[in-house]
């Protein structure tokens, strides 16, 4: 809903009256008679001497009030034209009230925002301040007062008709995202179906995943434990979920080989899920009795205390194989370097770009970014899992096509000289079509 209200500046008599009224916010009356009385009484109060001494400051003009689109109905946009006498203005005060409501429920004028001197803003969004929330379906009136450099508050005119904020059922700016999501989800489901119908889908080999069996075998031969670090993030992180999925598959192989497993956890929820995953994997491997109750354990939620504990474990127990799969921060190198010094074979995987160089440097194999998410499909080879990976690849193919088109359009823009002019630039047109970076 959009509503524009044109307003006239307040009368000169009222301005002069307000000039004498110091800081108090006078309550403008609704009836013309009482307005006249108020003007007369306040004008009388303002002595002619004061009026002559103080410069005249014309009020700001409230130009429009509109409901902010694509919100929950909790914001209103207020636009105004600043006072022409800007040299005498210290700030603009945005006042709000609910007409007809009792004073305790917002019926009286309240300052909800202010635009200080030097701020060029003339379009203000009301509703962000938790003390003065805008409620959906409630009528509001606004007024813009001018606070002058000599301390006067020049009152603006009240607004009629009132504005009402309302929530929308679809975020129109997210239409591009919706189209993209539908496209990508459809592609993934298409490949699900294709895989289920018996099509052989090729997956390129990933050395890090192929090495998992070898690493477990090595630990078994050496009679040493396997250390599995499921990252330091919480269960909300998709990388952690991917890691726990891989843990289940690794634990199943570990159970078959009867190799000791150590899974230290930083997050209590991840710990409970990891414990269940390992228990279930032992059960599926037909060796529930081999499961050690203390193989999956919680350490601490403190980052560096966790590192100290895991490094201590590496030094004391000297695991033959270390897995670092999940989300990592500054602890990545501390863990991986200690593991490297202990002589373990190390397989890492993370989607944290800043930590990847550390893992690549210190580990034998590193799953880079998306490979972490694909690992589960590689290990299981179930048709739907493989289909999801192929769908993912198809999505990347579409993006790569757009990137290639973008490069070509950029070259054309450079050749034709329209690069600097957004209205003529072909690349700018493509960006306008697919760009969603303006969203939160």
């Amino acid at each position: 809903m959009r509503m524009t209200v044109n307003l006239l500046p307040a009368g000169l008599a009222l301005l002069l009256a307000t000039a004498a009224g110091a800081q108090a916010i006078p309550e403008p009356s609704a009836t013309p008679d009482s307005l006249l009385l108020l003007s007369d009484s306040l004008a009388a109060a303002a002595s002619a001497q004061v009026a002559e001494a103080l410069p005249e400051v014309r009020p700001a003009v409230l130009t429009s009030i509109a409901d902010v689109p694509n919100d929950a109905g909790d914001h209103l946009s207020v636009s105004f034209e600043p006072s022409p006498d800007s040299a005498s203005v210290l700030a603009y005060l945005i006042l709000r009230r609910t007409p007809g409501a009792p004073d305790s429920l917002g019926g009286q004028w309240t300052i909800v925002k202010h635009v200080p001197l030097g701020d060029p803003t003339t379009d203000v969004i009301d509703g962000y301040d938790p003390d003065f929330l805008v409620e959906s379906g409630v009528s509001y009136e606004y007024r813009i007062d001018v606070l002058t450099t000599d301390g006067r508050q020049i009152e603006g005119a009240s607004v009629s008709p009132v504005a009402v904020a309302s929530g929308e059922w679809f975020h129109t700016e997210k239409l591009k995202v919706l189209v993209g999501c539908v496209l990508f989800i459809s592609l993934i489901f298409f490949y699900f179906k294709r895989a289920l119908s018996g099509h052989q889908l090729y997956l390129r080999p990933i050395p890090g995943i192929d090495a998992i069996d070898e690493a477990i075998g090595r630990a078994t031969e050496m009679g040493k434990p396997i250390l599995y670090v499921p990252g330091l993030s919480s269960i909300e992180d998709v990388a952690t979920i991917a890691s726990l999925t891989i843990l289940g598959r690794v634990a199943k192989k570990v159970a078959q080989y009867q190799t000791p497993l150590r899974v230290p956890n930083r997050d209590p929820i991840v710990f409970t899920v990891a414990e269940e995953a390992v228990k279930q994997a032992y059960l599926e491997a037909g060796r529930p009795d081999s499961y050690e109750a203390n193989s999956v354990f919680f350490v601490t939620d403190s980052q560096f205390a966790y590192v100290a504990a895991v490094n201590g474990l590496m030094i004391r127990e000297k695991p033959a194989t270390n897995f670092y799969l999940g989300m990592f921060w500054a602890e990545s190198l501390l863990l991986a370097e200690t593991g490297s010094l202990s002589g373990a074979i190390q397989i890492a995987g993370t989607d944290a770009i800043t930590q990847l160089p550390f893992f690549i440097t210190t580990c034998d194999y590193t799953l880079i970014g998306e490979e972490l998410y694909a690992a589960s499909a590689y290990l299981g080879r179930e048709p739907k899992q493989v289909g999801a990976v192929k769908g993912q690849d198809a999505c990347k193919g579409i993006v790569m096509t757009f990137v290639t088109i973008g490069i070509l359009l950029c070259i054309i823009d450079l050749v034709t000289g329209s690069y600097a002019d957004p209205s003529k630039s072909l690349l700018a047109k493509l960006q306008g079509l697919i760009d969603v970076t303006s969203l939160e």
Partner: protein
Amino acid sequence: MIALVGGVIMIIQYFVPHRISQDVFNYYTSWGPIVATFALILGVGSVTRVHMYKIRMKSTNWAYSLAVILPMFLMPVFALLPGSLLGGTDGPGFFDFMYSRVQIPIQATMFSMLAFYIASAAFRAFRAKSLLATVLLVAAVFVMLAQVPIGDLAGRWLPNTGQWILRFPNLAAKRAIELGVGFGMLATSLKIIFGVERGWLGGAGE
């Protein structure tokens, strides 16, 4: 079924800005801290069980387990003590002392070791044993010199080359990885929502 319903609701919620949609989202997410609080009890139980077992069995290095168990249970006790009892009315209490004078320095010590580990890891990474390792070494030298004032002494071309490496080849690779991660997350989320991936609920997903 819960994952399916919850996942679909969250997908729809992203596109609906209405108050009802926001309330549903807030209602769902408000469960997170509650679940985390109860899970923490399980976590503390796990730590206690593991280390008490080592102490009881007198396993190798069992004394370390004592160093875990004692502070873990003593710190809450210190927090319950009135500040005036051990720290005086003006100074911090014993809990604050243990936290700021013991725990924080220990953590800082662990973090500071990172500098030494970076040095040793860099030494290993920068050995020019192959063509790719040599390219890495040369790129690293340019980027590092571009970050320090001494790089300017050789001329502007050196920092400019370093910046070019960061802004073009490096950024392109970074974005490619981010793109793959984004699609990986999307596919994994869909697999979870539609029940294709159930390994995270326990077991190997079969």
